[in-house]
């Protein structure tokens, strides 16, 4: 790490903090302008006005709005979003319990996106305008035009029809219970606890939801990788390598791929926002029972505190993912380290 990279990362970090601030302001305003009293919602129609008033005071709703916002922000920083208006339990505890499920799904999706998207893009670029390229471009078009919920339904149907014993709902076989591992990621916990059967079952359950979620990302990454590879192929330094007799394979994988990996990584960062959104749908179809399912449920039930937590955490996901990607890009691309910015 040198000064340029650190400056670059610091600048990005400031940007990301402001993202979260604006997001918090938006969701707060939204949650407070809606007609309907959260205290009344939490207590139900049978509660007396007196009880509602006490609840309002307890929830801090009798304070002026700016004070409420500061309280909300302070709570959010400490990870405290109050109690769910529906279940009455602590929102943060509820969400934390569900986070590993979604995390596992998202990580698997990202892995699939890179595992398929980049090599296929390289393939398309190498066989540009030949049949392999044409086929891949058509496939990527399908990937872009297919909404995640349709992909999920179709894959589920495929599994149910053609792979008789393949599990299509949930994260794990019921008979295995829910092993309490240290990470909450079932695939990893299975290994840590010395239960390969758990890991295997978890991977089986994971395959189709992750595939459904990754389709559009694979298509996007493939497209970007292809065009980046083609663009770099024309450059002088690549021509020079070739004219020195460096084998095509080495040029492609050691030089071109490194140059061309910045664009797909950037796209992955932007894609992350829609990935979080699509996780809502995919988790619903596969009864995944993660953070996104919880979010959808709390939105449908107008559980304001839970909604605020879900929206803020979605934003945090996005920000953290992009920060990680920026570090990666900074490590790959020396130009960024030198200039300390784009």
């Amino acid at each position, binding site marked *: 790490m040198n000064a340029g990279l650190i400056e670059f990362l610091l600048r990005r970090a400031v*940007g*990301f903090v*402001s*993202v979260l601030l*604006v*997001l918090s302001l*938006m*969701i707060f305003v*939204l*949650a407070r302008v*809606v007609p309907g009293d959260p205290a009344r919602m939490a207590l139900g129609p049978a509660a007396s006005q007196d009880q509602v008033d006490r609840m309002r005071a307890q929830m801090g709703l009798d304070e002026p709005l700016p004070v409420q916002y500061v309280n909300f922000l302070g709570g959010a920083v400490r990870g405290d979003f109050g109690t769910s208006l529906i279940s009455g339990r602590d929102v943060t505890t509820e969400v934390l319990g569900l986070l590993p499920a979604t995390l596992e799904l998202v990580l698997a999706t990202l892995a699939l996106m890179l595992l398929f998207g980049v090599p296929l893009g390289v393939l398309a670029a190498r066989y540009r305008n030949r049949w392999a390229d044409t086929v891949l471009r058509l496939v990527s*078009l399908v990937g*872009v*035009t*297919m*909404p*995640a*919920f*349709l992909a999920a*339904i*179709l894959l589920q*149907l495929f599994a*149910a*029809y053609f792979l008789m014993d393949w599990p299509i709902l949930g994260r794990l076989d019921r008979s295995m219970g829910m092993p309490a591992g240290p990470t909450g990621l079932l695939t990893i916990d299975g290994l840590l606890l010395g239960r390969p059967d758990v890991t295997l079952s978890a991977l089986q359950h994971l395959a189709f939801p992750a595939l459904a979620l990754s389709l559009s990302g694979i298509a996007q990454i493939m497209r970007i990788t292809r065009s980046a590879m083609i663009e770099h192929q024309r450059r002088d330094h690549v021509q020079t390598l070739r004219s020195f007799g460096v084998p095509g394979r080495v040029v492609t994988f050691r030089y071109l791929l490194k140059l061309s990996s910045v664009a797909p990584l950037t796209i992955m960062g*932007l894609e992350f*926002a*829609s990935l*979080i*959104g*699509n996780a*809502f*749908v995919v988790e*619903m179809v596969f009864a995944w029972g993660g953070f996104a399912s919880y*979010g*959808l449920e709390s*939105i*449908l039930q*107008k559980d*304001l505190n839970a*909604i605020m937590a*879900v*929206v803020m955490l*979605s*934003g945090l996901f*996005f*920000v953290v993912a*992009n920060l990680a990607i920026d570090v990666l890009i900074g490590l790959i691309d020396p130009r960024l380290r030198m200039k300390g910015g784009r």
Partner: protein
Amino acid sequence: MATAEPHGADAPVQILSARRMAWLRFRSNPVAVIGALMVLSVLFCVAFAPWITPYPAHSGNVLDFANRHAAPSADHWLGTDKVGRDIFTRVIYGFRISLLLVVGVLGVAVPVGAALGLAAGYFGGRTEFAITGFTNVMLAIPPLVMALAVGNILNPNLINAMIAIALLWWTWHARLVYRVAKSVAAEDFIEAARLAGASHWHILTREILPNCVAVISVKTTLDAAFIILFGATLSFLGLGVRPPTPDLGSMVADGRQFLPEMWWGVLGPALGIFYATLGFNLLGDGLRDMFDVEV
């Protein structure tokens, strides 16, 4: 207009206008032409739905239990749904809702985004800093999560879905227009216009904006496909249009309950979504090649 001249030795060299060149390039791209035809057919369906669908009444609250869950046949090309309504008819009507959403969102998002992008690119300085900063912040908000939250906290219906999507959608246009406007603003002809005493308004709308039309039109076409998907996703989750209004997303959700036996309940609306988004995507790709811009 270029006229067909014989290519003799002293035939004058033809200079084609930029517009004509672009059209020729578009016409020679079969994918773009197919996309354009698909989009036109969708627009045709939207405009003439009551006249071209076999059962226009089925777009509403019709119950025909005798015909429920009928498989695709000559009478019902895509079969019927759980209360016996013709799915083909409802898919065509579903296009209406999809396109309404597209027009509603883009009608707000494109002008707002373009205006902010222009201002940021042209004025520079603090304006640029504020607008690009705000745009980048808004870009980072997961759109579906926000649309779900906004739509449902307010009230889940088409108008609120539109508001929720438009609230975030302008950012993409702001970013694109900003990039073009910034590079155009540095050109000499802008300086010349300024020296000639042209107002900011004149320069923004007459000198810079025409240079942004290409990116805006490509992005808008591709957006249409995204918004159709987005709207379908919202209503699939039960947060878009209310029944009995036919919407592609909620039809998929309805049909899903009867999988795998009554597969046509999902197939019809799925094909509808696929057809519309594919058309807009192909057309957008074609326009992108034609204008030779990066979006």
